[in-house]
């Protein structure tokens, strides 16, 4: 059992939790994720490690409530425990000195971006961060990310904060004015696709973190397979980070809708209880 030792409500639908998991905390690196199961009957869901504290033995997760499991998770409180919490899974992020890097985060993708921004800054990069969300209430970790950024921008769909429009508009401006060596993008699939299409024109190395539906997270089921440069890769062991210019985003969108009907049903039933 893994105890919840801290909980913060970041917005109506986004919550942060610190979970006691000493073995995971000892090994966790930016870019990796965990798989948790709330109880005996629960589904195994993957969440990115947003922060880790090896001394205290804790892992921070930040999640958006989208369906049955994430909503149920949101109802738990400090002192409650999770049945399973396995990790750190996946390959760590490719952190090294690139020069000038732009970190683009969208929606709940901002959470996994945070440890990467921190690590890139600590490796001596000039870090430019661009965060995007539908509206300003859905922005996460602004202060935390700004603290590790040399330049910091915000874009919201409704213009409630920063630039009105998409993160890619801001990215375009940055590319127009300075020499960018690498772009790291994490967020909705469509955002990563747009960012990758943009950077491809300028031949800027781009890394994205993919979030296919997973089951085991150990390379056993192949449910998380993604098509990279025409080759099948398992995101849980070969990723989740991949070369953004080689990802088949349309296939990923399609595969993430696989159980949409059933999930809706489970949610309705859970809501009715």
């Amino acid at each position, binding site marked *: 059992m893994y105890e919840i030792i801290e909980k913060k409500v970041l917005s109506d639908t986004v919550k942060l939790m610190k979970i006691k998991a000493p073995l995971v905390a000892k090994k966790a690196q930016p870019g990796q994720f965990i798989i948790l199961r709330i109880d005996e009957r629960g589904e195994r869901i993957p969440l990115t490690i947003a922060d880790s504290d090896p001394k205290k033995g804790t892992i921070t997760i930040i999640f958006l409530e989208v369906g049955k499991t994430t909503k149920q998770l949101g109802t738990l409180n400090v002192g409650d425990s999770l049945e399973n919490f396995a990790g750190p899974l996946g390959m760590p992020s490719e952190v090294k000195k690139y020069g000038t890097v732009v970190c683009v985060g969208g929606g709940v993708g901002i959470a996994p971006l945070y440890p990467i921004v921190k690590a890139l800054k600590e490796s001596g990069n000039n870090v430019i961060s661009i965060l995007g969300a539908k509206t300003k209430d859905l922005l996460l970790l602004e202060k935390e990310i700004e603290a590790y950024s040399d330049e910091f921008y915000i874009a919201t769909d409704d213009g409630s904060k920063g630039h009105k429009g998409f993160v890619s508009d801001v990215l375009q401006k940055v590319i127009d004015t300075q020499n960018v060596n690498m772009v790291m993008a994490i967020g909705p699939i469509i955002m990563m696709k747009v960012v990758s299409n943009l950077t491809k024109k300028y031949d800027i190395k781009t890394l994205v973190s993919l979030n296919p539906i997973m*089951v085991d997270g150990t390379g*056993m*089921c192949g449910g998380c397979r993604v*098509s990279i440069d025409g080759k099948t890769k398992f995101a849980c062991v070969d990723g989740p980070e991949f070369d953004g210019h080689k990802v088949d985003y349309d296939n990923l969108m399609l595969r993430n809708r696989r159980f949409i009907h059933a999930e809706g049903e489970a949610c309705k*039933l859970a809501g009715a209880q």
Partner: protein
Amino acid sequence: MSVRKTKHEMPEQPPQERIKNFKEVPYGYTKEIAIEEAKRCLQCKNKPCMKGCPVEIDIPGFITCIAQGDFDKAAEVIKAKNNLPAISGRVCPYESQCEEECTLKKIGEPVGIGRLERFIADYEREKGKKPPKKPKSTGKIVAVVGSGPAGLTCAGDLARMGHAVTVFEALHDPGGVLMYGIPEFRLPKAIVKSEVEYVKSLGVAINYDVVVGKTIDVKELMEEYDAVFIGTGAGLPNWLNIPGENLDGVYSANEFLTRVNMMKAYKFPEYDTPVKIGRIVATFGAGNVAMDCARTSLRLGAEKSYILYRRTEAEMPARAEEIEHAKQEGVIFKLLTNPIRFIGDEKGILKEVEYLKMQLGEPDDSGRRRPVPIPGSEEKIPIDTALVAIGQSPNPLIPQTMKELKIGKHGNIIADDDGRTSVPGIFAGGDIATGAATVILAMGAGKRVARAIDTYLKNK
């Protein structure tokens, strides 16, 4: 006195009933039938059946106990060699092992050795197992990675020798393929759990959620423990590598079976993990895994469940009983067919498979006649779900994170018969060393390696 030429039938759920539920298919022998079947045994002096048994159970020995009605003694004889008889008694390919060698085959059917083993294991379980005697502690500690049949057997035997054993398992349940792969109707999970409880009662500790290579490295285990056994299995699914394999509706057998068995998707939404199969399901391959997929699909409500296989029935690798059960349940076999592409609709949802018809040509290296495509024989059938069950390769995680371990060309960890790898103190056995094989071979390896580890620890 003349011997009965055929095995006593094992009562089972009728096909029309059982395809509507996930309950076990055979009910097992009653005491009376078991005794009658045991009496068929000739008690051959040279014990040919034993040579066919990978774990060397004293087969005539336990059968004679059954014939005399001494079931407790029979259980003792089996348990001397096999910690998990309720499992092997259900999933062993007897027809190509012990029963293949049985003298009675000369005049008819062999003794129902598998059925008798199963009867005794069930008898013992229902009665409640005797708590085993705790041996004297040797003070040595061993880490076992993976809780499949290889890991569980090795752990159990080491504990009986007095070593302290900790098992590290990546998933949230023990048993490996026994839990996530083989379906409830063939191997009830309560039985797997009860066999695991037995291993735990020997003093073995099991830690879940530990992905060795990620959560903790083999090297760290080496620092902490006196020896390490790796039994991580062959869990990496093989693909057909044809166009359309990533469409919505194509699953690996592992994903499909894990969702249904371990995550209990057949009880969705009572359990949270979903599965979706539609009306028509096609399974590719003809081993045990394929039969499990095809039969599970029927139980989930598929109207048609096909098996597409590129050779003929004679070459099918599945156990005879599985093929028989699949046929009885109405699985449709399309033999000598080889898929060439999956076709989706405009949304990317699977709707058809196209395949070529095959014919058997010259024998290949394995001695089986090689299937060759018949030019121009393309055909399509509409399907909602495709299940790819064409084999699994050894799990790459530990080889990837422990470069010192020598790896074979199929990704297997190279180990000798006693499980010694290229690194002293690290042992490996089961599917991770041999490639995908059988439960009993994994158990046999677990036993041999436990002896080798014991010797290693004594000399250390």
